[in-house]
């Protein structure tokens, strides 16, 4: 009778009448389903998608002319134009269209966010995984380095890195990226510590998998939830930090339209020409808001205890 049961299950595909096609349901699939239910998260996603479209179409919305790129077309006869009309966000002290600069600035911000997150995520995840997997001396050495990084105030660290390497976008990204490493390393280490004790890791070892394979294929995929959340939130932080560094003059150099640099330039005219400060400021706030919304939504979607 028992053998019969097995035999029934073994019936070839198509013969079995109740063989309904089943959907492949990965963890990511479930997460997306839960994510979609959160209105705020979807709103954040909408903001970021809109921003990506804006950044991608910057060349079309504000094309370059014969001499200058689209963000640096000056019209010295029409400086400080208020919003509306031909220039929907108005013009700045050189008569440049602020909307064009914001659209081009979106490219820089997203680029900075992406590169910074890549730098800190790759380094942080590697360090955290090694530290968590091989406890002992390796763990101690790595975590003390991380502690040292954490002990230096972020702005001081960034200023010294930029001071050593010189100002400019690339160095700002390195500075902000390095400053983000500890966050990833600690989160990943904590998850690895809990995942490596699970039975399926022992099972993986029992089929002859080596350490590298166990870390990359079995442990890290199970630590993805906190890493993704941290990356989303971290991207917001990175954009904000890069804007702050540009604001104090360490980042992007003029005439590049970085939002933080735009804020810094327009500070002088704030009293008389509100729109020059307003739009870059709103742009920064919006993208940070959107990314944090997504981050929160993902955190909830990844946490099955919050399932309703």
């Amino acid at each position, binding site marked *: 009778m*028992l*053998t019969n*049961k*097995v*035999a029934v*299950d*073994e*019936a070839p*595909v198509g013969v*079995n009448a109740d*063989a309904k*096609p*089943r959907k*492949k*349901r*990965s*963890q990511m699939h479930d997460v997306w389903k839960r994510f979609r239910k959160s209105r705020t998260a979807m709103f954040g996603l909408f903001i970021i998608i809109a921003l990506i479209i804006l950044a991608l179409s910057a060349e079309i919305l504000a094309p370059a002319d014969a001499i200058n790129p689209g963000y640096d077309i000056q019209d010295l006869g029409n400086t400080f134009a208020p919003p509306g009309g031909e220039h929907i966000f108005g013009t700045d002290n050189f008569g440049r269209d602020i909307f064009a600069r914001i659209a081009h600035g979106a490219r820089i911000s997203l680029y900075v966010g992406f590169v910074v997150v890549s730098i800190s995520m790759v380094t942080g995840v590697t360090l955290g995984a090694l530290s968590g997997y091989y406890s002992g001396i390796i763990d101690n050495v790595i975590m003390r380095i991380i502690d040292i990084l954490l002990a230096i105030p972020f702005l001081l660290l960034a200023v010294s890195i930029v001071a050593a390497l010189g100002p400019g976008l690339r160095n700002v990204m390195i500075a902000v990226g390095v400053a983000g490493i500890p966050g990833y390393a600690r989160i990943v280490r904590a998850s690895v510590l809990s995942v490596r004790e*699970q*039975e*399926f890791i*022992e*099972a*993986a*070892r*029992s*089929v*002859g*998998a*080596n350490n590298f*394979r166990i870390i990359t*294929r*079995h442990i890290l*995929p*199970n630590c*993805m939830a906190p890493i993704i959340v941290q990356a989303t939130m971290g991207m917001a932080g990175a954009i904000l930090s890069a804007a702050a560094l540009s604001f104090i003059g360490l980042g992007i150099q003029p005439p590049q339209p970085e939002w933080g640099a735009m804020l810094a330039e327009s500070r002088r005219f704030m009293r008389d020409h509100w729109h020059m400060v307003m739009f870059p400021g709103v742009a920064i706030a919006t993208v940070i808001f959107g990314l944090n919304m997504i981050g929160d939504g993902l955190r909830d979607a990844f946490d099955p205890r919050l399932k309703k």
Partner: protein
Amino acid sequence: MPENTAQASNEALLDIQDLSIHYITEDGTVRAVNNLNLSLKRGETIGLVGETGAGKTTTALGIMRLVPDPPGKIVGGRINFAGEDLTQKSDAAMRNVRGKRISMIFQDPMTSLNPVIPVRDQIAEVILLHEKVSAAEALAKAEEMLLKVGIRSERAREYPHQFSGGMRQRVVIAIALACNPELLISDEPTTALDVTIQAQVLELMKNLKREFNTSMIMITHDLGIVADICDKVAIMYAGSVVEIGDKYDLFRNPKHPYTIGLFNSLPDIEKDEDSLKPIKGFMPDPMDLPSGCPFHPRCDVAKPICMQAAPSEYVNVSENHRVKCLLFSDTTGGE
């Protein structure tokens, strides 16, 4: 391979001699396995029976060389597997043994599969690790293995959480048998399953074992399972085998007081009993084993000498049945 096994069927595939595994901690040394002896022929199934804490799982992990180190250490003995001493092998060499020549099935199928990898890919992983095949061939073979354990191929791409406990344990079995290992170690494979599923899984294991001519170590505390699928039984107490023998010999004629106690603690449906007859006392603390025979504080028939001397030699009860107890050794005059 088949003619090879036929040739070697008389010699032992696995021969463990005086194996000792200790966990060395700051609070003291846990003597989990002490001078354990065990041997197994090709195609044979041995049941490793004992209470929780008797060292069954540590023995299994020891054979796989997967005892967590630190704190665990194989402090003595040999594990001869097909003529080679596994305790002397390098880590890299052991990785080629694990999964390919010796496989292990873990107790809880709920936790022994990786939740983020489809089951088919988890089976293919073993095949890819040990056989020179392409990824596509490995996946095809994985689906074949799933069919063998009774899982239809349209479910192959699903994730472990989409399967029931019994189905998952079948997947685990498929992983364990994917490379056709010579030895399969099952660590209480059915404890986490309910009885009907348990029977199905055992039946499946029995059939596959026959098909692949695999030797098996079945770790269990269920004498019913032993009676069902094992050829031999080894009774473990405090880290060593106290009685070993052919299933029929041992079940009909248990000798060691501990074995007798185990059988007595089973409820008998024929008799109208009000209470079970458990063995008195508890398993000794492996950090502080009693002097002499480790079982003497719980033994009803212990003699004075049992407190001083530990039995070291096995006494043959019959050709296929040996016991390690001073009651039967010549120095104390036997039974």
